[in-house]
């Protein structure tokens, strides 16, 4: 019994408790306690596993039954001691008769609840990782580099925020996808691989809801994840797409992503994740960087601009113009971007990669002096260390070249 399998049962176990009448916050705590017990006890301690072996049916079903039993007992214990503390009568008297857990799957409802629009993005992410993903507060805290106490507060506050939301209320898939997208983008830190976790949760969601954008996001994640090993050098420095070792891309994962995307696109309900995935697929498809189909990529960017009108997308489109039609055309598109959007973005939301794109296009155009100056400037504005170091090296490389 591995931890990932146990964790995959989290949402359905939680849903059973909620349907039995436990309130969401208390049920979630109880499930978390049961998970900790399971992870601790299952591999080594023979007692729960012998209980597993003795029960009939498939092992996953039995594991779920065990988790439901333990979580329900923990819920009862907690509400009893709560009640005793408050000198009130226990409102939950009896344990329901043991029996098969209901076949109804409320996992989907949990996704909606944990991504409820009343939650801030960071709260929705934390709650999703705990209540749907089955991660511990400590793991989530480590992944986001905040103290465990802070993460515990964030989660319990999030639970209070959604306490009045009706569990059977239909939710908005788009909010769930935004949360999963955020988790995926966080990447890897601490002992939790958040990208892999996001893929697992999106896969689980895709199995429960028939929605082309869910498939699109899953495809997008797989197509990016397939290149992960090649995106950074052994020293941790960033390796751009053009310089990645394509032989090390995970072709199985790429094939899976492409297949999922094609099925989604065939539905003819295009959305931003499908369009992003299409671009990622065209990159993943090219055997060499020279064979990249930039013309088609540019067409997808035009589609994406229509769908989102996001400044990030518009900037990435400029890169595609530079590759498809040459650096001069790219610089012209960049100038157009400057005219159409206010250049002095507020200090909180600058366009950090704007200067980096300009530097790259000037280098391609042969103006090394301007490119070197812009790379240095872009490094100064970079939003993270990996990009800053990369851009600094680009500036240093061009300056060394120019000194001859």
């Amino acid at each position: 019994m591995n931890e990932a399998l146990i964790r995959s049962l989290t949402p359905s176990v939680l849903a059973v408790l909620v349907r039995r009448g436990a309130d969401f916050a208390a049920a979630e705590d109880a499930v978390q306690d049961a998970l900790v017990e399971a992870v601790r006890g299952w591999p080594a301690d023979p007692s729960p596993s012998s209980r597993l072996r003795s029960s009939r049916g498939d092992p996953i079903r039995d594991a779920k039954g065990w988790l439901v039993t333990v979580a329900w007992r923990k819920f009862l214990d907690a509400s009893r001691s709560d009640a005793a503390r408050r000198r009130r009568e226990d409102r939950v008297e009896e344990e329901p008769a043991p029996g098969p857990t209901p076949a109804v799957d409320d996992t989907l409802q949990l996704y909606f609840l944990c991504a409820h629009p009343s939650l801030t993005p960071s709260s929705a992410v934390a709650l999703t990782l705990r209540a749907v993903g089955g991660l511990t507060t400590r793991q989530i805290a480590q992944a986001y580099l905040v103290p465990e106490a802070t993460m515990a507060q964030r989660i319990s506050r999030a639970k209070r925020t959604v306490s009045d939301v009706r569990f059977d209320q239909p939710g908005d898939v788009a909010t769930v996808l935004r949360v999963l997208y955020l988790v995926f983008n966080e990447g890897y830190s601490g002992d939790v691989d958040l990208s892999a976790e996001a893929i697992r949760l999106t896969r689980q969601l895709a199995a429960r809801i028939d929605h082309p954008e869910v498939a699109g996001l899953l495809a997008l994640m797989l197509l990016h994840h397939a290149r992960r090993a090649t995106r950074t050098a052994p020293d941790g420095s960033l390796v751009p797409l053009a310089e990645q070792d394509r032989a090390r891309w995970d072709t199985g994962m790429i094939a899976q992503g492409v297949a999922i995307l094609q099925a989604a696109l065939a539905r003819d309900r295009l959305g931003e994740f499908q369009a992003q995935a299409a671009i990622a697929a065209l990159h993943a498809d090219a055997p060499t960087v020279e064979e990249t189909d930039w013309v088609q990529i540019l067409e997808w960017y035009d589609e994406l601009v229509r769908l989102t009108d996001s400044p990030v997308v518009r900037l990435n489109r400029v890169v595609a113009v530079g590759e498809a039609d040459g650096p001069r055309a790219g610089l012209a598109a960049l100038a157009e971007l400057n005219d159409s959007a206010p250049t002095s973005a507020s200090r909180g939301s600058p366009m950090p990669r704007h200067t980096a794109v300009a530097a790259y296009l000037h280098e391609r155009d042969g103006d090394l002096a301007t490119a070197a100056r812009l790379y240095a400037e872009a490094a100064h504005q970079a939003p993270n260390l990996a990009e800053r170091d990369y851009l600094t090296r680009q500036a240093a490389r061009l300056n060394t070249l120019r000194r001859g």
Partner: protein
Amino acid sequence: MAKYLLLKHYRGAPAAVNDVPMDQWAPEEVSAHLKYMNDFAARLEETGEFVGGQALAPEGTWVRYDGEGRPPVTDGPFAETKDLIAGWMVIDVDSYERAVELAGELSAAPGAGGNPIHEWLELRPFLAEHSTVTECPHR
């Protein structure tokens, strides 16, 4: 989900509106000020936005490497150092706007006469370790 450093300066920040040195305040004004600061940190812990914080001694030492086999050279403190940090707090918030809002709250800490100091605080974003995966698709 971004981390910011809030810096409070002994020296080097523009003058506050209510700019009276702390030793000129009434004792209960000092207490009220410290309570405000503690309550602020406690409130941030409760909202799940607090990462850490610490006050710093005003006097420090400058240190540099002095070559193989030699002990580091120490110097200072220098009276002419313009920028002197008094303390820091790290917050983890959803947006730049939220970070500004919190810094504004901290700057409203009461000072002389029980009135807000309107102290200038420095707000610096952390550089993340990695770049986000999908935002920059050409890497």
